[in-house]
């Protein structure tokens, strides 16, 4: 009987190691059951494209017609969950696709992990795209992807409550507050903050109040060494934002889960959101108009502009066809781009196509015009360490923390993590 504890401790060790090693999933224990985390594997086709669930359906007809034209089989594989991390892992173990489709802020990380190839687009082709789209696809002075659609937040306004576009944020707050006081709405503005912040959605307010995240070089590219969080301008901007929170305009109770429904149900006259909200709003039948987010006073609100693009895997088994599809088939052709971005419901990255879209679709025009004022989402890998501390600092300030010291702590964390990563 004496050997029992040893056997038991041996089993305990195995059990524990198992818990750690398998990412803390376990059977027979009282807890949420872990999802199946089986890694996706490249489909069996000549040319394979990976994208998110959301974008797969729109890409399929284009892939099919390309396959028909060239007599090869093309498969669009939707990847659920963490598309980028899955893609990097699969690519490095030789099971990845030929083409990846995702937003531009992934580029730095993908290049760092040798997962995508640089492209050589002709000068004509580059000139056909909107400037912000080419900037977003560029990393270390190299173009890495073919842009096709532009994504950014803008101001959604319920036209039943507010017929006129507010010129400044102050005007927006006054108008909204009157509606709240009159009892027609519950909140002035629906902007997702959540307990842990959302720096992507807050960026137009932060820049519109004069703050800046990274300084820019003379050529308009970001300077990762110039972190602007502790600058007096940024502190002043966050103080202004805290003022809005004190008036009840911003709140940590509004988050990604409820922000769109608040606006769709007519509980707020204003919302800061992007193209992904349109479908829900049309379903709800609310009357709205999309315009740029106004700045405070005379300031300009600059939302982050993310650009959706197609990239060629550095381990593609069929590079030539991948290049043909990305640079020549999708490329910068106006008609293809129109069909492509119409399917995605976003402004096209091709200037001419965007002009044509704007003439017929007010939503896309509004989003696109707001994006013109924006700045590309930084692509350098250091940006990855910024989102989380910045979002949390913003949530803390909206919750009442001192702007100067909170921003200083966030900046210190960001610097520390950049140093750790190198």
């Amino acid at each position, binding site marked *: 009987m004496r050997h029992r504890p040893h056997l038991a401790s041996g089993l*305990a060790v195995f059990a524990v190691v198992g818990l750690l090693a398998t*990412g803390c999933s376990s059977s027979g224990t*009282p807890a949420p059951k872990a999802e199946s985390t089986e890694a996706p594997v490249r489909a069996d086709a000549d040319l394979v494209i990976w994208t998110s669930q959301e974008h797969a359906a729109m890409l399929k007809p284009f892939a099919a017609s390309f396959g028909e034209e*060239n007599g090869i089989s093309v498969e669009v594989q939707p990847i659920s969950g963490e598309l980028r991390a899955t893609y990097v892992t699969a690519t490095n173990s030789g099971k990845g696709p030929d083409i990846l489709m995702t937003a531009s802020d992934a580029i730095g990380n993908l290049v760092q992990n040798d997962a995508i190839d640089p492209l*050589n687009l002709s000068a004509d082709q580059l000139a056909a795209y909107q400037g912000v789209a080419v900037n977003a696809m560029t990393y270390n002075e190299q173009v890495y992807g073919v842009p096709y659609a532009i994504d950014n937040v803008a101001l959604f306004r319920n036209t039943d409550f507010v017929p006129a576009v507010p010129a400044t944020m102050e005007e927006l707050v006054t108008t909204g507050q009157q509606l709240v006081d009159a009892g027609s709405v519950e909140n002035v503005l629906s902007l997702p903050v959540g307990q842990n912040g959302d720096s992507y959605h807050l960026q137009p307010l932060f820049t519109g109040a004069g703050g800046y995240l990274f300084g820019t070089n003379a050529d308009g590219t970001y300077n990762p060494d110039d972190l602007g969080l502790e600058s007096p301008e940024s502190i002043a901007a966050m103080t202004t934002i805290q003022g809005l929170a004190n008036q009840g305009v911003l709140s940590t109770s509004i*988050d990604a889960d409820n922000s769109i429904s608040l606006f769709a149900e007519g509980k707020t006259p204003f919302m800061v959101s992007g193209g992904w909200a349109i479908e829900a709003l049309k379903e709800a039948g609310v009357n709205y108009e999309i315009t740029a987010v106004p700045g405070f006073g005379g300031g300009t609100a600059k939302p982050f502009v993310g650009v959706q693009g197609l990239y060629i895997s550095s381990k593609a088994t069929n590079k030539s066809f991948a290049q043909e599809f990305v640079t020549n088939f999708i490329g910068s052709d106006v008609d293809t781009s129109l069909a492509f971005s119409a399917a995605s419901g976003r402004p096209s990255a091709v200037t001419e196509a965007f002009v044509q879209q704007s003439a017929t679709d007010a939503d896309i025009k509004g989003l696109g015009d707001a994006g013109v004022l924006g700045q590309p989402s930084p692509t350098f890998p250091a940006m*990855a360490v910024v989102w989380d501390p910045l979002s949390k600092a913003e949530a803390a300030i909206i919750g009442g923390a001192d702007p100067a010291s909170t921003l200083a*702590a966030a900046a210190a*964390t960001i610097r520390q993590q950049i140093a750790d990563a190198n």
Partner: protein
Amino acid sequence: MMTIIEERAESVDTARPASRPPRPRTGNGGLGVLVRYLMLAVILAVAIQAVSVTVANEQWWATAIVVAATLAVVATYATRKFVPLKYLIPGILLMLMFQIYPVFYTFYTAFTNASDGHTISKEESIEAITVNGPIVEEPDADRYALTVAVADGADPAVAPFVYLMVGADGAALLGDEEGVSPLDAPDVTVEGGKVTAADGYSVLSGVQINDRSGEFDAFSVPLQGDKAVKKIGLSEAFAGAVQYRYDAETDTIIDSTSGTVYIADNASWVPEGGGATLAPGWKQFVGFDNFTKVLTNDTVRNSFVGILLWNIAFAGLSVLTTFALGLLLALVLNRKMIGQRATRSLLLLPYALPGFITALVWASMYNKDFGLINNLTGLDVNWLGDVWWAKVALLVTNLWLGFPYMFLICTGALQSMPANLTEAAIVDGASPWRVFRSITLPLLMTSIAPMLVASFAFNFNNFTLIFLLTEGGPFPADNPSAGATDLLISYTYRLAFGGAGSQFGFAAAISIFIFIIVAILSISSFRRAIALEEVNS
């Protein structure tokens, strides 16, 4: 639990055929043998398929492991020499695959710098930067419209490729292994800016190129110096040169446009005199660096003790509350009553729903302004925004998720408990509380204590719940890396994966530390559980 295993082992011992005449076995009939050999054939077929793949990829270790495992399986099931192994080998193989291998891999990773930017070998890194790296296009150079062909009459499956190109001036050019020359064919058809037919050449179709895609990707037309005509896809080509060149003698990479020399240093290509490194770097062994980094990390040092205490409290309280509620309900429903079965089924509902959906629903119910809880009760509690309320919210949610399991195992244990003991106690005049304290609970603990330990170990690393409900928050304004409801596992996840990309080596080192903590806690509680068992027996 242990007793059962041991009794079984003993019964196997006494039934060993050596001391008895061999018994007739089931499965020895014609059909049984056939099924057995069919299964073995399937296993062999799968193994051969696997070996052919691993050999093709030159993965010798994997090959050796597959061969060894297959031999073990065949030797066990094709002969009668290893009867006990027949029962154990599937479990052993699965344990090696899913428990032991990941453990070794975690230890191995802890001693490397594996992280974003350091995931590939040095050779792959050189290749990525030089051959597959940026190509500098000639300034103002022409783009060519490209047609891919082979010499007429040659086999399109093996013949060397030639490029039939049309420049901006409309002149047709020929590119082959020799270089670029004017296309000197009597009859060249150019349609839509592309050569569509030329005497002496047969144009390849997409399918024909696709059949030779690897070969085609590697083909380019050489020009003077480092330059070459490269294709973009199937219909465009341009002249350019690779930007970076590797010098094996000095182990440096040279930028041919700016002349900058990059030195191999600390698994990265660092420019002489410092500056931004050239991506990607490579993976290498770093000894105990990751472990020292854990121990000297400022944020780890400042927050570790607080998080560890909360972690123990969270796991302990989760087990305690779920067990208490589960046991109470099991006791109540152990008596025959109307609707017993229906109530039992209803109580299992939270367990039957996917946990992550439940957690997200609870997260929205806790919302301060729009959440169900505050709206129904008229409270104004900032559930997820207040340090203490967030902890309460977590425990309540975990109680909801966890009590059905405890209810289930307690019900099972109660039903298998002999009724005569409790009846005897009642006859002796013991109060219901006394019966519960002195008879039911001790008997129950014998079978349930190990489950409680397992539940503790699970909740100690209950990443999913934390991540879905609070993400570790609320966070103090001055420290975005350690939240009030962070467990060690969610905290280290943020350190290793949350910010600066994925730092696999660092994460592996931390998980070894967590492993040591959980192992110590679990071993000591298992000992107590076993002591309890021995007292009872």
